[in-house]
């Protein structure tokens, strides 16, 4: 099962893969593309990934989550261009009890952000683009990025 996809993610399909007669609590997380970032107006963005490593790390995250809690978990992350409001990431966790479902879902999104090699380039309404750096205080487009345009 691939974790990265170029197609829209469907939460219902993700949930259907993990539910079962013994798992009554389902918690999901969706990360949607916002229309602004640090005060700048965002038109759209593009995710790219180190794909074989990202797939391997996602599989590892699911396995470690399912061994730490009595849950089933699934996730899907978009790559390629996305528009405002689209889901970039979807996570679903099903558990016998809701405590575990909440804890495991939270763990997955935190670890995904920390460990899965995926990058995000935002396009702003002023025509500039910027690679988002969550470790930086704020995101400023570099000179190269202002100039435009080494194609990726």
């Amino acid at each position, binding site marked *: 099962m691939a974790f990265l996809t170029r197609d829209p993610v469907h939460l219902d399909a993700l949930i259907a893969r993990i539910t079962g007669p013994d798992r009554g609590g389902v918690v999901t997380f969706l990360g949607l593309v916002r229309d602004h970032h640090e005060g700048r107006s965002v038109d759209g963005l593009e995710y790219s*990934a180190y794909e074989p490593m990202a797939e391997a790390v996602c599989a590892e995250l699911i396995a470690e989550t399912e061994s730490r809690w009595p849950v089933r978990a699934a996730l899907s992350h978009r790559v390629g261009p996305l528009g405002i409001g689209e889901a970039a990431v979807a996570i679903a966790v099903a558990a016998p009890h809701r405590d575990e479902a909440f804890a495991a879902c939270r763990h997955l999104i935190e670890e995904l*952000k920390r*460990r899965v090699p*995926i990058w995000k380039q935002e396009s702003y309404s002023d025509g500039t683009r910027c*690679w988002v*750096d969550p470790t930086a205080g704020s995101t400023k487009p570099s000179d190269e990025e202002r100039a435009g345009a080494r194609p990726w």
Partner: protein
Amino acid sequence: MADSVGTPPTIRIRLFARYAELLGAEYLDMPAAGLSTTNDVLARIRALPGGAGVGESTLVAINLKQAAPGSPIRPGDEVALLPPLAGG
């Protein structure tokens, strides 16, 4: 083997996102000589035009696994330089 004479051992260095743009390449194959740890790879990349932007927050993966700073590398390894991650 002819290979051991004709093609010296190399390290494939993968570059992503901002780093691929800075260096103008998605990967570089470099002679393995002198590259015994990930720090050697970072130093060599930073010496290239555009390489100064490969900052302190760079994560390194060896053969698809994240590696601690200064991890040893061997000829034939794929070493990836990962800008700060921004998934999710």
